[in-house]
């Protein structure tokens, strides 16, 4: 009858509740730790992530055992389906890797505070609720929780001008884009009288094609979402934010929040706006071509590795949008597997940059990589693997994501788009190999040995192992991704 809060609600939210509690716990225990023992905060946060992962695993296996495809909770405000679970795994993994590579980096920057890890866990909470959300209000607040956390993390190096500037730019533009998104959402609410995505979907499906109000709603929502995923022409914040943020945070925001925003975009375009596919398809095609073009061409002339990877992240967003353009099962599978792979290869590449950081050297210029092969062959070879994977060369994992997306384009008859996308892979090869050339061909400027902290060792080991493993033995991962994305296709 009047169930405000049922055991089911609790069950669905358990991983999120655990993360919140551990986040608050980190803030409290931070008070009792002196500067030498701040790394304990990272340990606490990792334990919290592990607890959440165990809960998620239990829920997942229970759902599989009972044959339940999805659980609704909070009167339909959230729905835990396989799609949400899949992306939640990506968030947990990327948060854990980001925490591992942050420890030493923040110590060197002398900004090692427990709040960093607490905010990271809160960001993970926002991301997980965002992929579960089925209600406009829930979605918007979860999105704001996520991006607000990332604004703070971007400006975490308070004495660094670049970091301050990046955070301020990101905050102002991000707030503006959230406003546009909220305007689009208000139009959806006005047309359907409900904030539930399924009700909105039914109400929009009953409208005639080409309804002008639906067009405005699509435009406003698309503008807001394209900003969040960093698609052209709403990409300007991205290189600055990626360059200015602490490198460990850049690694995090290039994967976790990006995957969350993209999952949100998929949900919005496929569920409430699914019936208006004819209207948004040309928009999406145009934006994805522009995104690939600008991302790949602008990356060529960058001299800063973080900036280069930022433009490469823009181009990856373009490829991912192509998966939505084709919109069939293969395309969705491609997007899902792309993100899993992207988590490992991109965070791995950033982890190598973090490892280069010393007291006197930021390590994010391409020139700082000179002669890495002679100074530290391990780091150079790992970077080579990650870059090959980012470019999409078999047998690394990066090939797999691109393969499925291109396959889905061909299946749905978008041959021209597929050809353009493949051409840009060649361009991408050029700028990734600029880094490789500097690492392997140039003489090192100094002879100082690299030292890896235990956290970076684990992070590099896991990311490299997964990048190769998924590439060589993709079958279980493809099945996992394929079974999860079906739940979002109506």
């Amino acid at each position, binding site marked *: 009858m009047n169930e405000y809060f049922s055991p089911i609600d609790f069950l669905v939210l358990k991983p999120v509740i655990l993360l919140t509690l551990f986040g608050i716990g980190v*803030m409290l225990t931070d008070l009792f730790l002196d500067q030498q023992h701040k790394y304990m905060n990272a340990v606490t946060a990792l334990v919290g992530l592990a607890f959440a992962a165990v809960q998620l695993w239990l829920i997942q296996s229970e759902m599989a055992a009972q044959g339940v495809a999805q659980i609704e909770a909070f009167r339909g405000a959230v729905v835990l389906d396989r799609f949400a679970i899949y992306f939640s795994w990506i968030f947990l993994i990327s948060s854990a890797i980001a925490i591992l590579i942050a420890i030493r980096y923040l110590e060197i920057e002398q900004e090692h505070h427990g709040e960093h890890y607490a905010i990271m866990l*809160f960001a993970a909470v926002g991301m997980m609720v965002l992929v579960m959300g089925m209600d406009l209000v*829930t979605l*918007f607040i*979860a999105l704001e*929780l996520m991006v607000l956390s990332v604004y703070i993390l971007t400006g975490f190096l308070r004495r660094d001008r670049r970091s301050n500037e990046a955070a301020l730019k990101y905050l102002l533009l991000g707030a503006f884009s959230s406003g546009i998104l909220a305007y689009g959402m208000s139009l959806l609410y006005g047309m359907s009288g409900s904030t539930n995505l399924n009700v909105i979907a039914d109400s929009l499906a009953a409208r005639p094609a080409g309804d002008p*109000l639906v067009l405005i709603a699509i435009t406003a929502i698309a503008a807001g979402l394209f900003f969040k995923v960093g698609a052209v022409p709403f990409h300007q914040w991205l290189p600055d934010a990626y360059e200015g943020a602490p490198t460990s945070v850049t690694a995090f925001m290039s994967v976790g929040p990006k995957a969350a925003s993209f999952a949100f975009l998929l949900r919005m375009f496929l569920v409430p706006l699914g019936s208006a596919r004819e209207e948004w398809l040309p928009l999406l095609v145009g934006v994805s071509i522009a995104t690939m073009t600008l991302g790949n061409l602008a990356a060529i002339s960058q001299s800063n590795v973080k900036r280069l990877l930022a433009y490469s992240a823009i181009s990856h967003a373009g490829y991912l949008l192509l998966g939505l353009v084709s919109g069939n099962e293969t395309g969705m599978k491609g997007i899902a597997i792309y993100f899993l792979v992207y988590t490992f290869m991109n965070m791995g590449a950033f982890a190598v940059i973090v490892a280069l950081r010393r007291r006197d050297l930021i390590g994010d210029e391409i020139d700082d990589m000179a002669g890495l092969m002679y100074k530290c062959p391990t780091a150079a070879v790992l970077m080579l693997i990650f870059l090959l994977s980012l470019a999409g060369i078999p047998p690394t994992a990066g090939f797999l994501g691109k393969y499925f997306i291109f396959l889905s384009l061909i299946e749905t008859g978008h041959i021209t788009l597929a050809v353009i996308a493949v051409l840009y892979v060649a361009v991408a090869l050029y700028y990734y190999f600029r880094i490789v050339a500097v690492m392997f061909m140039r003489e090192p400027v100094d002879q100082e040995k690299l030292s890896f902290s235990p956290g970076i060792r684990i992070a590099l080991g896991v990311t490299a192992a997964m990048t190769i493993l998924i590439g060589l033995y993709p079958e279980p991962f493809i099945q996992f991704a394929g079974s999860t994305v079906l739940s979002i296709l109506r």
Partner: protein
Amino acid sequence: MPESILNGLFFYVLAVVILGGAIMTITRRNAVHSAIWLVVTLMGVAGLYLHLNAEFLAAVQILVYIGGIMVLFLFVIMLVNLDEAAKQRQFNRQWSLALICTLVVLVEFGFFLMRGAGSFAFAEPGQGALKPNTELMAVALFQDYLLPFEIASLLLLVAILGAVLMAKKEI
């Protein structure tokens, strides 16, 4: 119908007050003047809530925004030295371009909204005695939107954390 004309009039007057106040807020050179024009805008929004029969929201809008937040704004403005800011150029170089873009978007949106105005279904007013305003608010907050309400508390926690982190010299 005279009643609907009156309703329309009420709305348009308030809209002019809100938008006028907002434009004045961003164009004043003196920050205190801006803050006071913002009060006008917020009052207008409170009036809109009254117009929609949401008395509780209107009262909260006045108490929290105008009573609380604006006073804090004025405090901050008086604590910070703004003489320097008053001497600087108020608009950046792209303002004319921005104005053109805004006008284009305005015309575009206006066109679409005019075309689509018929497709907004107006809700029927409730029959009989309505529940008290505060009770409806409580139902919305603690039943229908319980989860976003709870997550909003986390959002505020992060915001406080961020503000303290950015502002404090030594953590």
